[in-house]
């Protein structure tokens, strides 16, 4: 029974990891930017939710659209007026740029929001669905469904809308896309905006299940890394699968090997996947490899 419980825990956790990873993976796949500030952007969303809850007692779930919209705008600005300026440079220049941004955002949050750990606990927190020996906390279940729904919405957007198709076209062949009248500068900005918006939503959900401070930004980014590598770049289904795999892997390795080994195992698996199948569990060739 305990094994089933741990599997469920892993899936619930994994859906959240997937949400953190989706935006990161999309940005990477399309614009070839590894956004080291991704975790910091997610935390901005978390702080939005936290302050709205604290000041006006807005239910955390109701702040999801706000986080998405605000971070969407922030992301659009960042890409349009900062990242686009260096996007053609060597990749490690981009890495350093986003790290500079990360340092800036984390210190900005520390200065203005303090380094305190925060958490949001609405009245209904801690209630659970109990099925015999199995316990499923309602909040985690809600987080799970929101994450899956967000992933589905994003997949639909990329598949069905003109903008979504433009994003995919740009990621495949930027020159060809330009010839059909797509402006890569705008498409890049849109992609980064969506990535940041989804990160903001992940931040909102983070407030409900854990404690956060500006200093966990790096940890979140690392999770996004692993999810993207496991799933394959630029693919929503891939990130969802990668997140779930990571979640289950973590809970089972802490059950079988011991809690303190779970990170080592997660990173080890990431390196292994990179070596054996760099395109990820579900990555298709074109998304990742055309660029190199």
């Amino acid at each position: 029974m305990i094994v089933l419980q741990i599997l469920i825990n892993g899936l619930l956790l994994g859906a959240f990891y997937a949400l953190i990873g989706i935006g990161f993976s999309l940005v990477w796949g399309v614009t070839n930017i590894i956004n080291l500030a991704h975790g910091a952007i997610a935390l901005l969303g978390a702080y939005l939710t936290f302050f709205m809850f604290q000041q006006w007692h807005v239910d955390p779930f109701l702040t999801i659209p706000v986080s998405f919209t605000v971070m969407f705008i922030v992301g659009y600005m960042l890409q349009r007026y900062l990242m686009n300026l260096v996007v053609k440079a060597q990749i490690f220049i981009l890495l350093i740029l986003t790290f500079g941004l990360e340092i800036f955002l984390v210190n900005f949050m520390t200065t203005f929001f303090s380094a305190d750990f925060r958490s949001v606990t609405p009245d209904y927190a801690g209630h659970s669905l109990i099925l015999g020996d199995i316990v499923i906390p309602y909040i985690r279940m809600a987080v799970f469904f929101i994450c899956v729904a967000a992933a589905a919405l994003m997949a639909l957007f990329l598949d069905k809308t003109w903008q979504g198709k433009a994003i995919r076209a740009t990621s495949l062949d930027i020159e060809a896309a330009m010839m059909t009248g797509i402006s890569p500068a705008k498409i890049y900005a849109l992609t980064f905006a969506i990535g940041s918006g989804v990160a903001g939503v992940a931040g909102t959900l983070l407030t409900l299940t854990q404690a956060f401070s500006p200093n966990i930004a790096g940890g979140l980014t690392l999770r996004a890394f692993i999810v993207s590598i496991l799933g394959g770049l630029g693919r929503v289904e891939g990130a969802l699968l990668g997140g779930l795999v990571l979640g289950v892997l973590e809970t089972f390795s802490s059950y079988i090997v011991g809690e303190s080994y779970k990170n080592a195992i997660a990173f080890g698996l990431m390196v292994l996947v990179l070596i054996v199948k760099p395109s990820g569990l579900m990555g298709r060739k074109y998304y990742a490899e055309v660029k190199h």
Partner: protein
Amino acid sequence: MKAGKGILFAVFVLTLIALPSLVSGYWLRVLTQTFLFASIATGSNIIIGYTGYPAFGNIAFFGVGAYVTGVLSTKYGMSFISTLPFCALSGIVLAILLGIPILRLKGHYFAIATVGVMETFRELIDNMTELTGGGMGLTLPIMKLGPESIYKYFYYAMLLCMLFALLLSYIVSKIKLGYALRAIKVDEDAASVMGINTPLYKTIAWALSASVVGLSGGIYAYWISYIDPNTVFVGAYSVKMFAMILLGGAGTVFGPLIGAFVLELISEVVWSKFIAIHGMVLGLLIILIILFIPKGLFETFKGGFSFKKLLSNLKENSL
């Protein structure tokens, strides 16, 4: 090296050798730290700058080197000096073992694989409590010397390490290996077609780079005398190292050294003026370096300072 440059460098080294009798303990410490970063940056430049492989997690070798010295001196009672060859060796061996699979990856994938390697090492050492003290850290034996002498000792040790890194970097740039690496950087496939054994040269480059980084880790551990996984596997050091390489000029012999001195000394002098917001200032500074002088100070301002150049740098990479 041209004669003028050679003389300049000799004066620089002689000044550094003479300094300990002139300045206080605090500045010795600042300089020792600067040498440390200069060593790491110069060593890493061989794989990053020469070969064009962004080894973002190169600090992994630093951490391992620190623990090699730590474990050998506490558990096996070896003296500080005798542990150092093992630090360099640990870097070489690990870089070869890891290089065979990982150096096949390119660009971002390689960068991330190295980060993954660093995090894995950190977590493993964190869990090998019996040997490494795990999260509780490791206290190294303190030298039986007065404070002044200990300072000078590590000042000179780190200075030697830095000069060693420079020498290695200089030699690599002059021999066939260096040309092969530059060919790989420009176009690996073409280099391969021309008959360059690219996997071999890449691995050698990484191993050399790792040996320097490992060595500096070993010296650092003994100098600081207490290490734990979080103080030697520091992602922030990777970034600092990259910023230094960029600032001074990637792929040049002296660039990383100059970058290290500029950045470390600026941070020492300027930071104290921005106590509350220096983190934000550092972030902005990195962003500005990337935007305006991605090729390094010296390449950018070869013919004197001009705003035009800054702007043209900005335009070059934008979409």
